Each structure stands twice: as C-alpha cells, then as structure tokens.
C-alpha cells in the first residue's frame, strides 16, 4: 500500500436525465446515497468539497457551501472549485490532499448540474475580452465544431471512418443498457447513427454527447479511518493527476483561436491528453498493461478513440484496430466505458468526473450489475476538462 492511497468508502449518484429541477436536489440525493453506501452520516464528514456549476446562479459558484447548507450546516471545513469539465476531479484532488496531509479523515465530494437544452453557450452578457465569448462571436465555434475538427483530423491522419465512430456509440449504448444511472438506456444501431442528422460534419447527432442533469458524490477517507471503520480492503485511489499542458500546446482546444507556436520550442513529447494519464501512472507505479478497465471522456465518439492512444492502450493510430478487435467492449481485454460513458449519460459537467470514479468503484467492488468487468483490479478515469484543465484518476481494488 502506497502512503498516497486514500479509501473510497462510498459512492452515490442521482440518475442522469433532463429532470428540470434544481441542481442542489441532485447533489443532495447523490451525497446521501454515498454516505449511506459508506455507512457514515453527514455528521461524520469533516471536509466537504463541492464541484461548481457556472450555469445555475450564485449557488453553483459556491457549490461546496450550497451542498453543506442543504445537508444542514455542520461546521465542516468546506471548499468549492471550478475547473471546467475537470471540476469533479479537482474536487476529489482537494479532498485527497486534505486527507493525505492529515488535516481530515472523512471527506465528502459532491458535484451536480442542471444543464440547458442544446449548445453550451458562454455565460452572461457582452464580454469581448473573454476568448470563450469571442470564439462564438467571431467564428461560431461551438463545442461540436472543436469535436468535429478533432474527428476529421483523426480520419485524415489515422484512417478512421464514420462507421468506426458509429461503432463506439453502438458499443457504449450496449454497455449502458443495464446502468440504472444512465440517461439513455436503449440499443443503438450503426444505422441509427448513420441516419442521425449531421451537426458538425463529420459528426452526427448520435456521435456527440448530450448535456444532462445529474449528481454524483464520493465519501473519501484515510486508509486508517477505513480500517477503524472495519473496511480492511477498501477500493483505493492511489494516484490523481491534474497537470497543465506543457508549452507549446500544439493541439487545438476550447476556446482557442490558435495553438501555441512550436517555432521557438519544439512540441512536448507528450501532448496534453496523454500527459494527464502519464502523470497518474507514474504516481501509482502502474502502467496501462495493469488496467482492467477505463472510463474515458467521450464528448464525441471520435474522442473516445483518441483516448485509447492517450492512455496507452495502443500506439498512435492503433485505436481503430483496437476498437474493431472488440478489446474495448465488455468481455474484451480492456473494456472502455462499461458505464455507457457520456454516450449514455450526456454531460453533467461538475458531476461527470465524479461519476466516472463512482463507476470504477462499483466495478472494483464487483457490484456493477449487468455491466461488470470480470475480476476488475485497476481502472483509470480520464477527463479532458478543456480550457487547459483535465484529469486522470487511478482506482485500484
């Protein structure tokens, strides 16, 4: 056991959907479920870490306090953080640091969102000094445009086909069929994807993840606390990475108008998306060959293929073959997104990275009913937070 291990004693979610209610309700439900799962009460929690949502008014910006108030002010230490799509992982990182520093034994991490319909748009008012506002104004560069640019590049460089992208959706659709927290629990065929409307060529509606309501929570504790609590072999988090890109960042990312220039300094050995898991592997002392499963951030079907390479499941350009071999399907060598992924959930931004760790926890406990990866021992959850944020979390049995 590494001295950097923390225990995952509880995991809980409010099902993803388009429920039309306040995000606090989803977070509260997830928190209570996670606490019950851990066999602990809110009064046991010494530190609460909230992952913020920027589309739900002031309570969203101070999510830690919002959830603490909903649970009943208890005098716990509190933090709130925003890191775009990596907000949930950032909240886990905050709780982990508190536990590893010996400042607390029991932490609760909560993220929840209520998402608007349709395209994400910049928040509030005329802000011509904000690149996120400007990319919409000057380019009409929506999120799907960036996903589509990456997908087209993959087709040109690695020979990916539209049917490869569709096959990712079909796979994830099957994976999520039995997941009670997934929003979409319906078999999807290649034909369904082919016939869905083009949103941003080459991506079609069913290639792009939806925006969802949902909530996820984790109860994290020190290994000593878990032992005292009678859990001798808890699921553990031995490593978590939230590294920044390294200059020059040469891959286009939201909300960029341009990449960094590689004129003065050559491109780094590891682009951003592969630097994130690399740092986590180094910290955990394991490699991709040790993984039983992975939860990757499939904002689009094409991005799932990029992740196969970024987390080291295959060499660059090998993702299509890996997918076609069935290795990443449940029952294969290394199932990817057994939860159904964002394809079945849609994205509830601050909850999503926490939900990935919930799934790994249930898989490593052997309790992912209807989607269990056999003999799961280690998993990775990766997230491209965009805007320079991202995360990789390793979870072991």
């Amino acid at each position: 056991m590494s001295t950097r291990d923390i225990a995952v004693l509880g995991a809980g979610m409010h099902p993803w959907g388009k429920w039309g209610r306040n995000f606090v309700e989803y977070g509260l439900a997830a928190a209570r479920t996670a606490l019950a799962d851990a066999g602990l009460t809110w009064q046991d929690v010494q530190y609460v870490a909230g992952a913020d949502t920027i589309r739900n008014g002031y309570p969203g910006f101070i999510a830690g306090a919002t959830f603490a108030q909903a649970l009943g002010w208890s005098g716990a230490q509190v933090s709130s953080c925003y890191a775009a799509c990596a907000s949930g992982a950032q909240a886990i990182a905050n709780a982990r640091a508190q536990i590893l520093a010996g400042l607390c034994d029991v932490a609760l991490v909560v993220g929840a969102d209520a998402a608007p319909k349709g395209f994400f748009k910049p928040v509030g008012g005329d802000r011509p000094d904000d690149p996120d506002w400007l990319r919409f104004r000057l380019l009409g560069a929506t999120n799907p445009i960036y996903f589509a640019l990456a997908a087209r590049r993959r087709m040109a460089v690695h020979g990916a086909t539209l049917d490869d992208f569709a096959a990712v959706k079909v796979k994830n659709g099957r994976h999520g069929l039995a997941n009670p927290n997934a929003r979409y629990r319906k078999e999807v065929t290649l034909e369904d994807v082919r016939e869905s409307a083009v949103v941003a060529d080459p991506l079609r509606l069913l290639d792009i993840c939806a925006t969802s309501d949902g909530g996820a929570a984790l109860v994290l504790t020190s290994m000593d606390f878990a032992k005292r609590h009678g859990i001798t072999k808890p699921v553990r988090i031995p490593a978590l990475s939230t590294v920044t890109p390294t200059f020059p960042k040469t891959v286009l990312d939201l909300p960029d108008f341009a990449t960094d220039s590689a004129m003065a300094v050559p491109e780094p050995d590891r682009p951003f998306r592969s630097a994130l898991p690399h740092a986590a592997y180094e910290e955990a002392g394991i490699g991709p060959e040790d993984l039983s499963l992975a939860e990757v951030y499939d904002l689009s079907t094409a991005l799932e293929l990029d992740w196969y390479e970024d987390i080291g499941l295959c060499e660059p350009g090998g993702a299509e073959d890996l997918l076609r071999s069935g290795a990443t399907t449940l029952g294969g060598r290394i199932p990817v997104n057994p939860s159904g992924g964002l394809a079945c959930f849609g994205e509830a931004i601050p909850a999503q990275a926490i939900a990935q760790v919930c799934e790994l926890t249930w898989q490593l406990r052997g309790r992912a009913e209807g989607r269990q990866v056999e003999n799961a021992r280690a998993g990775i959850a990766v997230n491209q937070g965009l805007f320079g944020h991202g995360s990789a979390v390793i979870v072991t049995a």
Partner: protein
Amino acid sequence: MSTTGVSTGRERRPAIQGWFTGADGDVRLLGTRCASCGTPYFPRNELACRNPRCAGPRDGSELEEYAFSRRGRVWSYADSRYKPPAPYVSPDPFVPYTVAAVELETERMVVLGQVVPGVTVDDLEVGMEVELTEGVLYTDDDAEYTVWMWRPVN
C-alpha cells in the same frame, strides 16, 4: 442582421479591432512576437511571453507587432449545420458555415477561421493550401462587420 457575405454598400468595419488588417488587399492576421525567443502569438499577447524558458524580460516589453503568413495548409475542417447561440450573430434563416483550422508553416501553429461563404466541407481536404482573406461576418443597419476568413488558393 444578415451574413450573406454579399456586399450591401454599407460601411465596412472589422468585427474586432487589431486582430487582422485588410490594407491594400493584403489581408493578414495581426499578433505579437517575442523579440527574445521568437514565439509569435495570435490573438495578440501584450502581457508577457508565455514560453516558460524564454530568456527575455517577460514583462511585455519583449512583445512586438507581428503580421502572420498569409498562406497555410488545412489541418482540419468542420461545419455548423445548426444555428449557434449568441453572441454569434446569425442571419434569419440560419445559413450553415464552414470553419477551417489552418497550419502556418513559418509560425508552426494552427489558426482557426471561418471559410468564405459558398465553400463547403466537400470542397476542402486536409493538407489543401488556403490563403487569408476578409469576409462579412454580419451586418446591421449601420455597417458590414468583417472578419478574417480562409479560402482555397485555387
């Protein structure tokens, strides 16, 4: 407002000041460049060179005006088939548009831009040579607002 791309005879104004110049038909992206390490920036960076290993003062004094290469090769491209949310100013009815990410050989960077109206994804290929021009992004009662756009060289 409309974004037909067709000139209406109204006054032309850049949709954003200082990001590109259309002087004498020589449309170029404007940015800055570090006089110390040579790194160019678009959009312009006036704060401090962002190369962490740059030996310059990194207080902004090292950043000078820089006009980018006019031509590059398509790194990737996409289009938008649905009306994006504001602050994009969309004509009614909505007109789909194409976006290209273009690799500039000299600057060794990729720059996004809309592609001139009438060019669709079917007309583009990764690696194709394109050049910078200026086009109308939207119009109102007073003016046509222009922005940099890519167009195939041939």
